């Protein structure tokens, strides 16, 4: 202990400062470390020193911390990092530099939770990401970064290179460990077989010892390099007084290796070095596959993050193009996107038309047509001709940033399934340790020569790796598969709920159908021009999220009159001052401010001013892509379908008829819809509600599973568990994948349980040699992971296959 800083482990200067923690003085290397240690203790977080796996980073230079905190004050940077949430809070996701272990996680969470204004903190140790929800008005981001700096962590803006780097390092380390274990195991096995055959040939003792030392030479790097993370994990678990699967693994490896070394030195009859190297090799292989699946899930969201280009060509006031950083764009800027380039920020198309490839945003593989005035999402790729785009949203407000935030959030919270798996594994490990101790004591009494072999066999054979890997492997794989098909799972538990759904309630407008204004059926009064009426309506509707409002904006010319004193009544209509006159747009009873409305206007959307009706608009509806296929697939799967819409009876009936849905309810207010849900659920149904995620948020909140159909634009704000960004029939696929996930999970659990029940008694009786135990246990974990990788391989249609290929090629 002498000479090392208590906080960071670096060597001490001649006259070290003393940190006073809980009344005990500890020598530290610098005043920075002293301040950090004392501050941690002052916060009541001294437990950190007991929990941590390695020394902390040396306290950073205070000036550097200040500078990095100051950088976060720059509006461009904070605009990119901070995303406003629907409830008025702000959300930021940053990368943490200097994190070593779960104790760091714990320290960061506790530290930030103490700041006034922080609502929620979650740290993902694996990805080194911090997600923090805070009150942006009371607490600037720079204060949070400053607090992080004081405990010795540096926050980095979550940029692509940093993301890549973390994962690349993990991948490479895993590959090297796998390679060392593979080489070592092969060599050890070769020397061991020479030993086995040599034993029959009656080779002399010197040759035997030579080969034993060679085996030791081949095994040592495997044990100390490849198995390093298992030992580190076990030490961490023991320090935190918890049990996990690393404990029996580390114990078994240490016992076998130590026992064999003693045998070699004393010239004893048996060594098991080839078994232990093989055991480690198979364990590494299992972990490597599991890591690949985990990274694949992350890859997709990173591919999304990487979609947004770094530079943009901005059109200057004099008409020239200036290349600027994409983060410098502000709403209102005009940018030119060349053919094959990607759109730098969300915006509106200003050229006549173009085609855009949105494969990664919504899973739709063919490029879509966009006309003047239609919205383009950041990250979509312009195909065919260059496009001019007027920027409407930048940085963290863009759709793609929202989707990335959603997937990050889903990945950083642990699903119920995985938590249950971990708890079960911890209990299992406790029993295995007890059983191994009993075996050791039993054999020590009966036949001490076999005690070590039998104990090791029990430890190895019963290691609950398969058990512990089952749930995370399946869940991770399922999330990755669904993301690739345009279904974002926001709440991981939704997967489990989705599998058991018996009823699906659809909203109509914006979910099953897409409304469009019929230009030739606009009826105007008092000699007002049709286009002028559409323009006024569109001006009122601009910015509203209802699908009908969108239809107005799509039908109107690019320049719209200004609106003042805008008001809106959910589910009824909107109003405001246009050119000094007060207009109202919506259902006739709202627009005319009457309880009842004329029957000829019942079907229409009505625009009124103080003098009465100005115009009546008729709405054409077409089915959303995939609506028929989704309904067919769900009906075939035995799901009961219901339509609940706020629209008129005739229109709902028509859509229900076209889709072949027998149960439908028209003129439903949100309260009616909730009552419908309650009655369905009272009858024991598990109900999924599919809506557009914005207008029916309260209804979605009342469902077992809330699925939002986003035109990607609203996906980020949606109050839902699942967001479908592509075709509606992805819902049926999502359900199939969810069911497959659960069934594979059950298979995996059963397999792990049967395997353990069958082999542990044999091992305890000394009938399983350690090498066979190693093969059996590793094969069982591999089987679990490989089985989980099957998720999503069924019901793959050629179109999806193509989408997956395109995405991998881009990622």
């Amino acid at each position, binding site marked *: 202990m002498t000479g090392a800083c208590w906080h960071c482990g670096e060597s001490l200067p001649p006259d070290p400062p003393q940190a006073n923690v809980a009344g005990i003085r500890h020598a530290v290397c610098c005043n920075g470390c002293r301040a950090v240690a004392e501050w941690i203790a002052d916060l009541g977080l001294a437990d950190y020193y007991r929990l941590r796996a390695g020394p902390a980073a040396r306290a950073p230079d205070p000036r550097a911390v200040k500078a990095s905190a100051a950088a976060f004050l720059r509006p461009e940077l904070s605009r990119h990092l901070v995303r406003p949430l629907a409830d008025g809070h702000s959300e930021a996701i940053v990368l943490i530099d200097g994190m070593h272990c779960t104790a760091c996680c714990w320290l960061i969470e506790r530290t930030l939770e103490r700041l006034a204004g922080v609502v929620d903190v979650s740290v993902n140790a694996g990805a080194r990401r911090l997600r923090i929800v805070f009150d942006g008005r009371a607490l600037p981001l720079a204060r949070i970064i400053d607090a992080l700096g004081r405990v010795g962590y540096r926050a980095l803006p979550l940029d692509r290179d940093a993301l890549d780097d973390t994962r*690349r390092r993990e991948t490479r380390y895993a590959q090297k460990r796998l*390679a060392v274990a593979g080489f070592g195991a092969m*060599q050890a096995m070769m020397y061991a077989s020479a030993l086995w055959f040599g034993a029959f040939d009656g080779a002399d003792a010197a040759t035997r010892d030579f080969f034993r030392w060679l085996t030791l030479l081949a095994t040592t790097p495997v044990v100390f390099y490849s198995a390093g993370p298992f030992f580190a994990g076990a030490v961490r678990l023991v320090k935190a007084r918890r049990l996990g699967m690393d404990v029996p693994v580390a114990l078994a490896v240490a016992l076998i290796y130590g026992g064999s070394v003693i045998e070699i030195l004393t010239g004893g009859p048996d060594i098991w070095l080839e078994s232990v190297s093989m055991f480690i090799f198979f364990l590494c292989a299992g972990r490597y596959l599991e890591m690949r699946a985990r990274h694949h899930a992350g890859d997709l969201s990173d591919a999304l993050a990487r979609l947004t280009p770094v530079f943009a060509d901005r059109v200057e006031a004099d008409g020239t193009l200036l290349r600027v950083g994409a983060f410098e764009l502000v709403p209102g800027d005009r940018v030119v996107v060349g053919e094959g380039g990607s759109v730098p920020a969300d915006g509106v198309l200003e050229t006549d038309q173009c085609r855009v490839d949105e494969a990664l945003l919504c899973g739709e593989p063919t490029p879509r047509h966009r006309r003047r005035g239609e919205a383009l999402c950041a990250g979509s790729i312009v195909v065919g001709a260059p496009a001019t785009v007027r920027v409407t949203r930048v940085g963290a407000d863009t759709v793609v940033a929202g989707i990335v935030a959603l997937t990050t959030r889903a990945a950083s919270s642990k699903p119920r399934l995985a938590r249950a798996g971990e708890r079960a594994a911890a209990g299992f490990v406790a029993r295995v340790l007890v059983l191994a101790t009993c075996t050791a004591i039993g054999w020590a009494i009966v036949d001490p020569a076999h005690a070590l072999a039998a104990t090791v066999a029990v430890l190895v054979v019963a290691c609950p790796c398969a058990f512990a890997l089952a749930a995370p492997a399946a869940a991770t794989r399922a999330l990755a598969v669904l993301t690739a098909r345009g279904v974002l799972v926001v709440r991981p538990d939704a997967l489990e709920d989705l599998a058991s759904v018996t009823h699906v309630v659809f909203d109509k407008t914006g979910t099953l159908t897409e409304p469009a204004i019929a230009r030739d059926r606009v009826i105007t009064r008092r000699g007002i021009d049709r286009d002028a009426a559409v323009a006024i309506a569109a001006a009122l509707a601009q910015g509203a999220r209802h699908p009908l409002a969108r239809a107005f904006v799509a039908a109107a010319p690019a320049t719209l009159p200004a609106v003042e004193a805008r008001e809106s009544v959910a589910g009824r209509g909107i109003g405001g001052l246009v050119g000094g006159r007060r207009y109202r747009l919506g259902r006739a009873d709202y627009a005319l401010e009457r309880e009842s409305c004329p029957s000829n206007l019942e079907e229409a959307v009505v625009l009124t001013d103080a003098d009465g009706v100005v115009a009546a608009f008729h709405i054409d509806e077409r089915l959303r892509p995939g609506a028929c296929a989704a309904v067919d697939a769900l009906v075939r799967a035995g799901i009961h379908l219901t339509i609940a819409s706020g629209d008129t009876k005739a229109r709902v009936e028509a859509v229900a008829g076209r889709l072949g849905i027998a149960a439908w309810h028209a003129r439903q207010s949100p309260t009616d819809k909730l009552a419908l849900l309650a009655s369905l659920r009272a009858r024991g149904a598990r109900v999924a509600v599919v809506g557009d995620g914005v207008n029916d948020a309260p209804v979605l909140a009342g469902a077992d599973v809330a699925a939002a159909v986003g035109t990607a634009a609203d996906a980020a704000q949606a109050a839902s568990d699942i967001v479908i960004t592509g075709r509606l029939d992805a819902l049926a696929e999502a359900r199939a994948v969810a069911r497959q996930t659960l069934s594979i999970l059950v298979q995996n659990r059963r397999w792990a349980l049967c395997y353990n029940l069958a082999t542990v008694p044999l091992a305890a009786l000394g009938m399983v040699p350690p090498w066979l135990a190693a093969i059996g246990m590793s094969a069982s974990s591999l089987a679990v992971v490989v089985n989980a990788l099957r998720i999503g391989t069924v019901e793959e249609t050629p179109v999806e296959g193509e989408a997956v290929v395109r995405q*991998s090629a*881009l*990622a």
Partner: protein
Amino acid sequence: MTSLVFLIPLSVLILIGAGVALFWAINRGQFDDLETPGLLPLSDSDDTPRERQ
């Protein structure tokens, strides 16, 4: 049996050589992406892949 004294150290040396070569390749990023390179010949476009500049 005397050949063993020569051959076995040789095998150990070759093994170490192979290990060093593999570590070098891993560190140079040759195993970072195991999927995309297999798909690249299938894509029609002539442009070089966007990632990993």
